């Protein structure tokens, strides 16, 4: 908490006061996300497959909220690091304080091959913004092993591989039909 350092008007009444505050939180990684982070450093994406409905959660949450059953290490599966863009948003950055982006960029949802597991808010690389399509086939661009960093992974960053995957680049395979993905909820 820092007091305002601006010079006050010594003659006038006090009509306004700046008050800056910040709160810091430090939460331990829960065991299933800790395991997910360790595997990311090893270049693997893991999830939990619900033993009841078969939905896959990445990162694992330790439960399936649909079936309301707990999941354990026994339900862990390794997932493909390639998949399909199921939807995306083009973000046109406004230059507010702290905004580092200057040009329009894409945040995409990528459904990994072999199940429902979807990673949200992913960067796409090596593709112009106006060429991104639903159904586009993409593969993860892993950082070199020595540069991988999981310090930004938190219990709340569902689906994030920030620090280990730079983004997803088109594989050049033919697109899958967009209708296969549009209008569907992703869990």
């Amino acid at each position, binding site marked *: 908490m820092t007091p305002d350092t601006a010079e006050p008007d010594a003659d006038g009444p006090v009509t306004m006061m700046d008050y800056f505050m910040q709160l810091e939180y430090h939460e331990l990684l829960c065991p299933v996300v800790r395991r997910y982070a360790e595997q990311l450093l090893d270049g693997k994406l893991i999830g939990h497959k619900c033993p009841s409905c078969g939905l896959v959660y990445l990162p694992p949450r330790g*439960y399936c909220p649909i079936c*309301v059953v707990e999941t354990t290490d026994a339900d862990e599966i390794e997932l493909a690091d390639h998949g399909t863009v199921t939807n995306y948003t083009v973000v046109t950055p406004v230059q507010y304080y702290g905004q580092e982006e200057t040009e329009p960029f894409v945040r995409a949802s990528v459904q990994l091959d072999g199940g429902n597991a979807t990673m949200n808010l992913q960067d796409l690389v090596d593709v112009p913004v106006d060429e991104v399509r639903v159904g586009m086939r993409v593969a993860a661009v892993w950082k070199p092993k020595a540069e991988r960093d999981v310090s930004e992974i938190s219990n709340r960053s569902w689906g994030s591989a920030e620090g280990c995957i730079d983004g997803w680049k088109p594989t050049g395979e033919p697109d899958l039909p967009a209708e296969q993905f549009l209008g569907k909820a992703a869990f």
Partner: protein
Amino acid sequence: MADIAIVGYAQSPSWRQSELTEPQFLFPVISEAIQQAHVERRDIGFTCAGSCDYLSGQTFAFVMNLEAVGAWPPISESHVEMDGAWALYEAWVRLQHGDIDLALVFGSGKSSPGLPSEIYPLQLDPYTLTPLGADPVSLAALQARAMLDKGTITEREMAEIALRSRQHGATNPYAQVKDGRGDVDAMLAEPYVTAPLRRHDLPPISDGASAVVLATADKARAVCDRPVWIRGIDHRIEPHQPGMRDLTESLSTRQAGNHAGVADRPVDVAELSATFSHQEKLLREALGLGDRVEINPSGGALCANPVMAVGLARIAEAARAIRERGATRAVAHATSGQCLQQNLVCVLEGA
């Protein structure tokens, strides 16, 4: 008012720092409360949660907590940015409508990730109190000082309350502070943390959760051998600015207790959210609880203080006293804000 009963309750242990996420430790607590009630999850007509995003450090953290409930297909639910005891009040009101017969209530919080002494001043007056860093311990110390100056409590009485709470906590599997050893003279020889409060006068910092299942009268009798009936429930609030109140009394507790009918019949057990030792005596007097009333057999908030779950846990503990330990009539109390600003009183009976 329609009769509403508690038919199931559960709570997590209280931890200083849980490595589980809030939904993860809520998950078994909610399941246990529903199983204990002998009802099906899909038959619950209304769900209400109490939690605080400022504690969790994330906006909409309460939405994630619903993952522990089973919210698909979509359910009818609500949330209060308050202790789960107020979620129970909302569910009790909801059940009065008569169109549904079961409600699930839960409260949860993780105080461990943040610093309570930095978070709580932000809920106070932003001009005069927040910049001072008026934290809960400092404000409680002012309240204790006011009581000492008025002669309504002594530091020895405060230590006696703390020791008795710890002795009770030692028998409670959910408690965090379980050391019931010690004697009052030795406790009084300890230094002050914030005068006139010593370490034993303060609650622990806790993570934890609690849950309760409520039912209308017919449903309660159908699913449960020993429903615990809510005979009265009321909550009252006082001014936000602590300087506008007489901190040596709790008018809002007194009013809530009167409206909930505490004095209508003798009370066996009271579970009070006395977060600081001196508050127990203050609450006891505001509720007119005599010497024969057993206070906080669970150890109370001095032994486990999972903020946002601790008040609902008092209701669960009061129900437990009736259903599992033979009490006939119990009073549960929950509080919110600084120095007992807002108070809820719930009267429970076994028959």
